[in-house]
């Protein structure tokens, strides 16, 4: 299992992404209206899908954490790892979207509901991660950040459905029925490749977070700067 995560997953991700992007760039036909510019879809759409999946994982981990009576460091670490990976993917998705927007819409950024709600989502999760850095007590950090994650997740359906509810510049999600199969296949291959890459990032980051948490819980007095720790009030104990 460990070997698969360490070597198998990244290799699988690279293989699938390489295949998907090669198919998208060389095999799929150019879009009738946008031409070759549209091919960034094979990068942009999987990034955004996986960002949404990660935010969903963060939400589920946060809800489960709060429902458990005993603090579960595995769930807390999952939530942290998912939020970080999701923020990374979402930011990359936003940048690729801007690169596509310039030739297609004529601007890098438009105040369209999808873009605006996505930007709000990214700032919300950045705030979530900042909160985690500012709370030393691992118990409080886990509970509070779970609450913030749940409140922030209310925005997720707004991001997803914004293109249907407001019908502005950003196009509505297409269905495989209306798209040329030669475009659907590269997109699917690239999406599975991105999924493998995302899982790889998630697992690696999760293991780091869990190790950090265990170290914190094992040695609470050794952490500097925690005002509730007895060391903060009694520096002579250190010397």
């Amino acid at each position, binding site marked *: 299992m460990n070997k698969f995560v360490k070597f198998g997953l990244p290799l699988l991700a690279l293989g699938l992404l390489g295949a998907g992007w090669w198919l998208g760039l060389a095999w799929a036909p150019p879009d009738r209206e946008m031409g070759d510019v549209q091919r960034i879809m094979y990068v942009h759409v999987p990034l955004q899908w996986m960002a949404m999946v990660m935010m969903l994982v963060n939400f589920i981990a946060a809800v489960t954490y*709060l429902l458990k009576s005993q603090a579960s460091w595995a769930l807390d670490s999952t939530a942290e790892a998912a939020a970080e990976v999701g923020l990374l993917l979402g930011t990359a998705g936003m940048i690729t979207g801007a690169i596509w927007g310039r030739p297609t819409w004529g601007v890098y950024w438009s105040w369209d509901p999808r873009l605006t709600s996505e930007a709000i989502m990214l*700032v919300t999760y950045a*705030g979530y991660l900042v*909160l985690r850095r*500012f709370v*030393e007590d691992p118990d409080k950090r886990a509970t509070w950040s779970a*609450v*913030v994650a749940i*409140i922030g997740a209310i925005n997720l359906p707004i991001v997803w459905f914004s293109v249907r509810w407001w019908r502005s510049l950003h196009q509505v999600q297409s269905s495989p029925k209306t798209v040329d199969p030669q475009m659907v296949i590269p997109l699917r291959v690239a999406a599975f490749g991105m999924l493998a890459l995302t899982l790889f990032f998630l697992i690696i980051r999760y293991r780091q977070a869990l190790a950090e948490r265990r170290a914190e819980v094992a040695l609470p007095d050794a952490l500097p700067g925690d005002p509730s720790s007895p060391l903060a009030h009694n520096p002579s104990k250190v010397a």
Partner: protein
Amino acid sequence: MSTPPRPRPIGLVAATVALLRKDLLIEWRTRARLNAIIFFALATLLMFSFALGPDTKLLEKNAGGYYWLAILFASVLSLGESFRVEAENACLDGVRLAPADARAIFLSKALGNTLLLTALGALIFPVMVALFGVRIATSAGDWALILLLGCLALSAPGTVYAAISSNARARDVLLPLLLFPLVIPALLSAAKATTLVLQGDPMNQLSSWLGLLGGFNLIYWGVGFLLFPRIIED
């Protein structure tokens, strides 16, 4: 010898009223918080006029947005302060030890903040009328409803986040960082609705913005009510 009877738990409403009364009494005796946020909001309104230049048309057109930004900025001060009172002498521990529902703390704090912000909004409105040259085009009742709904919408998530950030490091950075992105829908609908009240509403759009504000309030008052006990537990 018989043991003394255990104190009867206080109901949610009674506890909320008692806590709200306590907070309002503290506020009334010092009047520090209301004074501070009024001057802060007035300064913010003035700053908009300076930053944008004396273009009365522009100021009048965007008055609704500036009005709500002034209230939002002032709300951060007010929300932060509402839990700082409890941090002194570990008062929050005392409140938590009382045989009452922890959710009463959320309700009382959020209602107290709503009252304070509504008072602020009502007090700075005449100043805005004078500074930006606006007038109410539809009805004063509409304006009052928007003010109340908008302040409720800032207070519910704001109280949850103020409780969290008051105990964290860098609390002054954390509260706006968490709160601002979250309240964008409320800020947007309150500002749009206020603009409609000030400039007239020929297309009858006011009700849909009020609906959005109402929905926002339902979600965040509900979520805050459910999750708040987990934040202040030890």
